[in-house]
């Protein structure tokens, strides 16, 4: 039977490294995805993921179970990623809040027309996937972060508020702005070409 996170953490705290390894295997991809979404560099994201797990092991004795293990792990990962970003600040230009609104808003239906009205997961065309990744990389950190946590991790607004340490109302508006900006950037990238999800041919 698969042990839950808290049981594994308690075993780690008692010195069971095999339990820690299980946690690493369970969360390595998620930690990488979160780090990648923030730093936008695969090698760097992999380094951050390594460092995050090492730090978790070093501090496992401090974990009291007041939040979920993943929330704790996520915060450590995020802090490491932000440290890296700060160290290279100025190298890259991102869209800030104001600049995002200078982009032309996509007209209603633009995206669903490009992607199809019944998009299926896992059949995203390669070129669109590349444009999506490129658009995501253009978002400010806080917007990229909240989209990843919502869309990949499936966090509720309550969990997002707790993880990001912001009010629930801010979660709602930040997600809205992140999505609107993403759509506006995609509008610039996609133009009128019929790109999108291939429906129906891959089950």
């Amino acid at each position, binding site marked *: 039977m698969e042990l839950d996170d808290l049981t594994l953490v308690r075993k780690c705290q008692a010195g069971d490294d095999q339990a820690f*390894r299980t946690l690493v295997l369970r969360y390595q*991809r998620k930690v990488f995805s979160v780090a990648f979404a923030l730093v936008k560099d695969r090698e760097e994201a992999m380094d951050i993921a390594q460092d995050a797990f090492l730090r978790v092991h070093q501090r496992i004795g401090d974990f009291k179970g007041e939040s979920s293990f993943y929330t704790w792990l996520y915060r450590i990962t995020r802090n490491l990623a932000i440290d890296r970003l700060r160290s290279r600040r100025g190298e890259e230009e991102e869209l800030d809040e104001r600049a995002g609104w200078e982009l032309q808003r996509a007209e209603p239906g*633009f995206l*669903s027309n490009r992607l199809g*009205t019944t998009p299926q997961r896992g059949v995203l065309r390669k070129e669109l996937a590349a444009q999506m990744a490129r658009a*995501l990389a253009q978002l400010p950190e806080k917007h990229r972060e909240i989209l990843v946590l919502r869309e990949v991790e499936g966090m509720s607004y309550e969990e997002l508020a707790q993880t990001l340490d912001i009010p629930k109302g801010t979660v709602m508006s930040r997600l809205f702005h992140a999505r609107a900006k993403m759509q506006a950037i995609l509008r610039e990238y996609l133009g009128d070409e019929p790109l999108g999800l291939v429906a129906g041919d891959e089950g």
Partner: protein
Amino acid sequence: MSETTRNLELEQRLSAFVDGELDPEEAEEIRRILGEDPAARARLDDLQALSVALQTTLEEIGEEADFEGFADEVMRRVERAKAPAAAPGRRRFFEWGVRRRAPIFAAAAALAAVATVVAVGPGILGDSNRERLLLEGDPADTRILAMTTQGDHGATLFKTSAGTTIIYLTGK
């Protein structure tokens, strides 16, 4: 309230509706609006399409990454971190240096140039002053912060209990 503000407010509620985060009364109100307003319906379709496309893209990024040996490397680092702290600075450097050899050398070389000119003065490298400078403060508390070699040169960064940071540049 202007039309633009109203539209933005509606879009924000649509975003929360897609996430299933509206209370039942608000959700019912949105369903009513969707039944009457084709533009709102189109916005909802956009949000749903974006959500699926984002999930697919982000999951593919994670799935494409190669995690073979990842957990083993984490466990190796955990073991090294548990080892007796004989030379913590050296150990930290080796963990880092394996992955970042060139940048540390460049950084150490740049710092060395500054330290040589500003703090130590020309002639420090290769003469006996090194010993004296290194032993400022408590000799037992002299720590190696980083060491690296590249080509014919090595760079070592020390810190003493007196807070002095000294960098050696040496030829092989």
